[in-house]
């Protein structure tokens, strides 16, 4: 019997969708291994209702550890303690920064194997095998584990599936490591900049580092205006971290996941962290002067050229076309 443990990320009473996806996937795999999927919550104020609700996504046990949320050290200590209580072969983290951090820490602590950016999991010969895309997603490596297998999934890799019903929450007492006592979350989830809505737009004009400045977002505004309707402007993490655009309008790993009818990237390189948040767009257009940019590997229409001359002219041409 091999059980699978899942770290359940949560914020303001809601379980992260990626954690729900990880639990559903774990439940399916555990079924094939003849075991169960269990979930671990770490936080100061996790309610019975929140933690118990993970049973509705396939977990048969929910463990709760009281500690500050938002950093990896208490998570490693919590999972380490729960692993000692049962027969666990694997730990899965849904997509997210903490998954990479706590996953690496836990694999090091337990002498296990670590798989990151995992997009698929399957059972072969009674063991879980993880699929890891490499080289700009042009190839997928299969990774097996010796000892504990620690799996940090890519964002949006696993979809939540409702099955089962709420479970009783078990509190676990954990002796925390010194390192956990040396980390303090001051603020969590701060929203910087205006509250913009990019998730309901049918056309998203996205500005990246190649736009060059906050002022140059007017180029993106002009193109979005030309499309009209529910077109909106969004940004990459690089542009947001540079202070050019509000965080609420950021696409990618630490931002929003979007699926517009049309995505237009302006000076967007197309790093994996961005791609995971927009690859479901129906049509992807990229304008970038760097012909080696990864976005050209997955764009439906790629334009290698200077966006500053092309985009204003394109906006005019679209307006003319619409009449």
């Amino acid at each position, binding site marked *: 019997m091999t059980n699978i443990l899942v770290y359940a990320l949560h*914020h303001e009473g809601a379980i992260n969708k990626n954690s729900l996806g990880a639990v559903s996937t774990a439940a399916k795999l555990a079924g094939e291994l003849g075991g169960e999927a269990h979930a671990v919550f770490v936080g100061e104020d996790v309610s019975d209702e929140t933690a118990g609700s993970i049973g509705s996504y396939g977990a048969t046990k929910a463990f709760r550890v009281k500690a500050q949320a938002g950093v990896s050290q208490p998570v490693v200590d919590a999972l380490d303690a729960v692993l000692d209580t049962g027969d666990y072969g694997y730990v899965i983290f849904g997509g997210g*920064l903490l998954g*990479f*951090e706590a996953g690496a820490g836990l694999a090091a602590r337990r002498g296990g194997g670590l798989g990151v950016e995992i997009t698929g999991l399957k059972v072969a010969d009674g063991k879980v095998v993880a699929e890891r895309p490499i080289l700009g997603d042009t190839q997928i490596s299969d990774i097996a584990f010796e000892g504990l297998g620690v799996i940090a999934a890519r964002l949006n890799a696993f979809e939540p599936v409702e099955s089962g019903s709420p479970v009783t929450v078990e509190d676990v007492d954990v002796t925390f490591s010194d390192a956990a006592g040396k980390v303090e979350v001051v603020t969590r989830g701060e929203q910087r900049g205006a509250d913009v809505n990019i998730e309901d737009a049918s*056309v998203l004009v996205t500005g990246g580092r190649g736009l060059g400045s906050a002022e140059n977002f007017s180029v993106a505004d002009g193109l979005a205006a030309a499309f009209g309707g529910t077109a909106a402007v969004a940004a990459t993490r690089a542009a947001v971290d540079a202070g050019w655009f509000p*965080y609420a309008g950021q696409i990618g790993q630490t931002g929003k996941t979007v699926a517009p009818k049309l995505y237009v990237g302006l000076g967007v390189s197309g790093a*994996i962290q961005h791609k995971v948040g927009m690859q479901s767009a129906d049509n992807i257009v990229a304008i970038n002067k760097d012909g080696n940019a990864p976005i*050209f590997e997955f764009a439906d*229409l790629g334009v290698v050229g*200077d966006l500053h001359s092309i985009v204003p002219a394109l906006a005019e041409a679209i307006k003319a076309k619409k009449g």
Partner: protein
Amino acid sequence: MTKIVVLVKEVPDAAVQKQVDSSTGRLDRSGEKTLNPFDTHAIEAALQLKESGALEVDEVVAITVGPSTAVKALHKAVSLGADRSIHLTDDGLVGSDVVGTGYALAELIKRENPGLVLAGQQSDDGQSYAVGAAVAEYLGWPGLTQVIKLDVDGQTITAERQAEYGYDTVKVTLPAVISVGDAINEPRYPSLKAIMGAKKKPLESLSLGDAGIDASKVGEAGRKAVWTGSQQPPAKAAGELIEDEDTAATVEKIVTWLDDRKLI
């Protein structure tokens, strides 16, 4: 006074077409190499802490684990401003996974006993984002990754980063392992003089035995995440590509493409 250790890595140059050895699943690391671009931000962060006096730093030490060619990455690191460098190189390291590499780096760091370890948030080739966190665990120190702002006050670092729900601000007590994102700073360019002088700065080359590293925990021997095969992702139809030579013609092609798909 304290010391900062910066973890660096040699990666294939961005312009090199990367490939995987189909018999081992390992990245073919032949071809032109360079210092991992993310690591230049870690070196810059170390230099800024040293120069501003925010931390009383007497030395910045660059450390790498890798084949003989990785010396070039160390030369680059010292040309950017590191004072000296350490190269762990040994046939027994070939095939190390992220956790094994983290263990080896932690052992090297223990020899130096720094007040702060800085790293780039990811390597340009493996892209695991994980080695910093593994190193922190082996050292028993707090660790944070993807940090884009660092303020030091005595023995406390206040760090900012983007996490799952927005910007987080976290305080950690030194010593700590901090992996920085590329938004943290704009790395300087090395001067010609610094490039020429890089080979004269101390470079210590160590084997596993020299460094007292348990060979059973690294390389093939210590590998716990094992490559078992490769597959091709589902084929996606190749996109169209326009090389812009004439703006009017380019715009017309884009409009036609959009119009054909009823996107205007």
